[in-house]
């Protein structure tokens, strides 16, 4: 009987291993192809016979492209920096503004609060597509097209972030604020010293989602960026495929450099993330 149960557990493991392999096969192919020399790309194999790690140096412009003998016409390192830079600014601003607004919605009692909050919630229903075209026109009017600020500013405010942080802050017992108030703390001090430290799990979740979403964001940079030096990684990959389309091994090396940091980030933060998703309901 015991053996039967252990065998069932073992079979369960086997089934899950099979599914897991199926899920990661595209990644395995991606990594293998990124090391292939161009002559081997069409061969039916996951790994090259003659690995060519230089593909990475070529993409990073540390080595010349073997076909033209020149450095690639693309600024991959700069795009990488742009993506990190923009995502970092958006995340910092969005977490700050969301936490402040959430504090006003969750910890202060004022007239009209629920109405304003409902207004916020209802805008979460508006498709981003409806807002994109006029937002672009606003950016044109403000002269922010093709600038870092134009990429950062519209993403720095989020109804979803406000909603998520409010849910977290509502869960903090009221007695903490009251005790701080007795000690003569004002709202700014309560916010900074009491509520923010207690809302940290929520902030971590929001930080990861916002960072990830903006690191991967495609539509807005696509319409906002005209110059090569401002491109972000996703837009860079698009121009990469346009220009070096047949050189699959280089495209895969670039893709690996985009995806692998995300895999590491995910494995490092997965505990907080899973808790955050299950609490907040959705990915931002």
């Amino acid at each position, binding site marked *: 009987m015991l053996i039967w149960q252990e065998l069932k557990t073992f079979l369960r493991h086997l089934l899950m291993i099979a599914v897991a392999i199926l899920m990661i096969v595209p990644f395995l192919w991606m990594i*293998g192809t990124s090391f292939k020399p161009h002559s081997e790309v069409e061969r039916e194999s996951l790994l090259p016979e003659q690995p060519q790690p230089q593909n990475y140096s070529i993409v990073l412009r540390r080595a010349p492209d073997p076909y033209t003998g020149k450095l690639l016409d693309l600024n991959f390192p700069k795009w990488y920096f742009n993506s990190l830079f923009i995502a970092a600014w958006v995340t910092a601003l969005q977490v700050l503004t969301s936490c402040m607004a959430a504090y006003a919605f969750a910890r202060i009692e004022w007239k*009209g609060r629920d109405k304003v909050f409902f207004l916020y919630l209802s805008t979460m229903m508006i498709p981003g597509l409806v807002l994109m075209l*006029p937002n672009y026109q*606003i950016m044109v009017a403000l002269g922010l097209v093709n600038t870092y600020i134009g990429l950062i500013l519209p993403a720095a405010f989020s109804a979803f972030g406000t909603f998520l942080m409010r849910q977290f802050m509502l869960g903090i017992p009221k007695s903490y604020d009251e005790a701080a108030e007795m000690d003569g703390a004002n709202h700014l001090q309560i916010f900074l010293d009491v509520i923010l430290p207690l809302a940290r799990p929520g902030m971590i979740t929001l930080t990861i989602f916002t960072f*990830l979403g903006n690191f991967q964001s495609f539509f807005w940079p696509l319409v906002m960026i005209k110059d090569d030096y401002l491109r972000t990684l996703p837009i860079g990959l698009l121009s990469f495929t346009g220009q070096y389309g047949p050189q699959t091994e280089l495209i895969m090396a670039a893709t690996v450099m985009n995806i692998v940091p995300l895999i590491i980030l*995910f494995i490092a933060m997965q505990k907080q993330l899973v808790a955050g998703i299950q609490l907040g309901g*959705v990915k931002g």
Partner: protein
Amino acid sequence: MNTSTRERGNRRVALLFLAPNFLGFCLFALVPLVLSLAGSFTTWSLRPSVPLQFIGLTNYIQLFQDKNFYFYLYNTGYLMLAMPVSIAGALTLAVLLNQQFQFKRARYQPRLALTAAVIAALGAAGLWLTGSPSLAYLTAALGLVSALGFLFGSVSYRTFFYLPHFTAGAATIILWSQLYNPNFGLINQVLGRFMEQPPGWLTSTKSLLGFLPLPAHFNNGGFGLGAREAIMIMGIWGAIGGNTMLLYLAGLSNIPPDLYEAADIDGASPWQRFWHITFPQLAPTTFFVCIMGVIGGLQGGFEQARLMTEGGPAGTTTTVSYYIYTQGFERLDLGYGSAVAWVLFVLILALTLANWKYGSRRMAD
């Protein structure tokens, strides 16, 4: 201090806290909302040569007479058929992950992990030396996955399942467009071993509903696997182990165990347990996931179309969102683009409300 001055003081502080967010909210959500509605009744264009004129319902009339709009709406709806598949898949994975992965004899776990790792390492080394690096690579991956699986159980499987969703973006879309490549893509290399003529994927206008008598301008390529199926398969890969699965896992852990104990006493089969306890108990999650799926799905398909297919072949992967993009940023006609966006918005609202009504009634039963 009496209560009313306190209230007023509170309000001032609250508004100060709210101010940065609220300003951004007005500038980038409320103002554009009004602008886009107003703009949809005008000749609003990014071309300086076109004067801004109020033209009433012209954009909307043009839209409803636009045969292609219905084609793109059909494409959008067809791609959304991947949604029930990924929801069912996510539920299946969640139920599987929710089972017991701990062995009764705890010492089995590290031993099995070690065995798997050793066998895989030896196998990989042997295959490498005998000249099949690809199989060695697969064996090594298999060894790693099984060793981690035996050691950490469902947490480790959950991580592998969630990876495609976490990394989803331009990079994975480009990765898949290479996987579908008819010459060197992995998918047709594998399928080529079993079939004479592997599917044309991203270059094919075929679809699984290709047998339907669709209008001629739908560019129906007949029954088969085409670009739309390619996008759907990629979508299912990305979604099946994603947030939906995590939400189902959370839902499963909230089902009171005594429900199952009662079912056991009644001698219920696993199938009955699922349909009479698990599935109804998870109804709120299913409901939420469906609503979010409809909202997201109707707006979806832009990145895939832009990065993989340029909306083709023959427009078969052009969705409404990609249409709005091409109208706005390629034809520079923001007025018409806004009209399309608003029709889509109304459609989303209507479907969400219908979903809500139908869903709440079902849940009340």
